[in-house]
């Protein structure tokens, strides 16, 4: 077993790091402050292929692997949590299910535009009354001739309004399973601009404030019959499998936030002087940093392991759940400690650590809360 990255992954990391430092970091404060979607950064990322990293070249992607994509999200998150989640939601939650479950026609139609970044993707599962609990879904899709008619709404949708292509989970009927009536769930590809598809209110968030989070509203929204993704009734499995991949992206985002906070804190404690010496010379500081660094390293190993599992295994739910659970909790813990070590400067906006702590919190919540990850992990243990 070799923990060293090979040449191509090392070079890719250097690329993402350089891009993040030069193009993303200078805007991060402003993106947070104004809550504006960083459209120019997204355009730049599109130009350099960052929006189709794990997609095969024949579909307009970069032909790289999940680990490379993971490192991209990680490096972006080190400087800007918002930018990282844009890439993650687009790649993991929109391109990935089309590549995995789409017909050849669907892949040809949607993936080249998405992978090249000409179009942006999003994923709609969550509803006002249903999060990861698929049976709580209310949005309905009814087949009417050659069209599916969608009615209902989705909330907290990352890349909402700015995305062009949406993967939407909806109820397509009631089935009986072992004597119980259950909702039949299917997934669909819906394009922005389809009549009956509109956007509700923009959410104002604690963190990742530049990411565009919207409510999606479907009112007799008619989409072509062929826009069903995967077989009818397979939507729940598709959604869950998609979230497994998404969790690796969010785990990478959490990891990046933690790493970014740790880096800044290490630099800060060497400079900041109290009682005549740098605070790095205090044992409390040293021990705190040691714990932070150890946890970050452990999180990195879990995240990379999950990325490798996605590349080589059919199912990687448990790996993804462990990576996300741990990395998200480390992100929260490390950023909280980083703020503490920064003292007053940690609490003011100019010093970024404050933003990182706010950004970290969401990683414990979206794409399955930490509690849901624990359910997945323990469910596998006790099955």
């Amino acid at each position: 077993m070799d923990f060293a990255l090979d040449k191509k992954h090392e070079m890719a990391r250097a690329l993402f790091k350089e891009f993040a430092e030069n193009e993303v970091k200078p805007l991060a404060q402003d993106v947070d402050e104004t809550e504006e979607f960083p459209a120019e950064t997204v355009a730049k990322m599109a130009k350099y292929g960052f929006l189709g990293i794990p997609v095969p070249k024949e579909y307009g992607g970069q032909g790289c692997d999940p680990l490379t994509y993971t490192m991209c999200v990680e490096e972006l998150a080190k400087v800007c949590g918002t930018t990282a989640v844009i890439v993650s939601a687009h790649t993991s939650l929109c391109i990935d299910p089309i590549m995995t479950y789409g017909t050849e026609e669907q892949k040809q139609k949607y993936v080249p535009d998405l992978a090249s970044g000409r179009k942006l993707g999003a994923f709609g599962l969550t509803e006002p009354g249903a999060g990861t609990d698929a049976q709580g879904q209310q949005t309905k899709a009814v087949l009417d001739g050659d069209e599916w008619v969608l009615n209902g709404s989705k909330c907290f949708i990352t890349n909402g309004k700015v995305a062009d292509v949406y993967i939407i989970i909806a109820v397509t009927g009631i089935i009986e399973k072992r004597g119980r009536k259950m909702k039949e769930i299917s997934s669909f590809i819906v394009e922005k601009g389809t009549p009956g598809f509109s956007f509700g209110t923009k959410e104002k968030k604690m963190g990742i404030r530049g990411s565009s989070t919207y409510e999606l509203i479907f009112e007799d929204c008619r989409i072509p019959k062929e826009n069903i993704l995967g077989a009818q009734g397979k939507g729940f499995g598709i959604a869950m499998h998609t979230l497994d991949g998404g969790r690796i992206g969010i785990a990478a985002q959490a990891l990046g936030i933690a790493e970014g906070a740790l880096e800044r804190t290490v630099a800060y404690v060497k400079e900041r002087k109290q009682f005549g010496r740098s605070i790095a010379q205090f044992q409390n500081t040293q021990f705190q940093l040691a714990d932070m660094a150890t946890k970050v390293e452990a999180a990195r190993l879990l995240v990379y392991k999950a990325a490798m599992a996605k590349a080589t295994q059919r199912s990687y739910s448990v790996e993804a759940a462990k990576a996300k659970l741990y990395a998200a909790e480390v992100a929260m813990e490390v950023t909280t400690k980083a703020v503490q070590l920064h003292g007053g400067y940690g609490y003011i906006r100019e010093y970024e650590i404050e933003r990182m702590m706010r950004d970290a919190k969401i990683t414990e919540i979206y794409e399955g809360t930490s509690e849901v990850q624990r359910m997945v992990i323990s469910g596998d243990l006790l099955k």
Partner: protein
Amino acid sequence: MKIVVCVKQVPDTKGGVQFNPDGTLNRAAMLAIMNPDDKAGLEAALRLKDQYGAEVTVVTMGLPKASDVLREALAMGADKAILVTDRVLGGADTWATSSTLAAAIRNLEYDLIITGRQAIDGDTAQVGPQISEHLDIPVISYAQDIKIEDGHVIVERQFEDRYHVLKAQMPCLITALSELNEPRYMTPGGIFDACEAEITTWGRADLKDLDDANIGLAGSPTKIAKASDKVRKGAGEKVTLDPEESVVYLMGKLAEKHII
């Protein structure tokens, strides 16, 4: 059009230089990067490729590790890469380096050669013009803009207080300023391909038109008599004087440092 770009791997001095506890430069701790002016030269070549169509070959001379910058160049969009490496070429000054690179370039077809103005480790700005002399072709240094018009290159050549618009025949050598452009990034897919790509490696034996008297340390007319790492400065002088005396003191210091 065939473009040859010369690049050099240099230690990164951005964000500060690393020192050993004894005050000497810690080269091992510094990242090795593609020299910034060379990267601008490569970008200029890639833009000509995008605009007019061209084959871009990158050449470097250095240790085997210098292949890293060649892979970076390939990942940015260069077509071919050549590493000139041989123990006997080591320790070369600008004369020996330019003689060697000129010999390597003679093995290639070229319409245009682009080098960076200067490398951030040596800061000499000599190798580009010297290659052009060895190849007996025109040189335009300090390019801030490059265009191709009916078989000629049109270059804005920077001076301290002006620029000249120059037109030269091809083949021609241009030295690029880092202000010339904003170099593109690699792409992830480009990196994966570059890591699979073959890098041509040439040793002494592959360089035909080259005299042994002009290579390596022995073939370098300039010799290092003494080298030292600059000691970092700490606090200087602090004086408390009345205003008139303060001004006299400052005028003295400014004159001493040739500031006035």
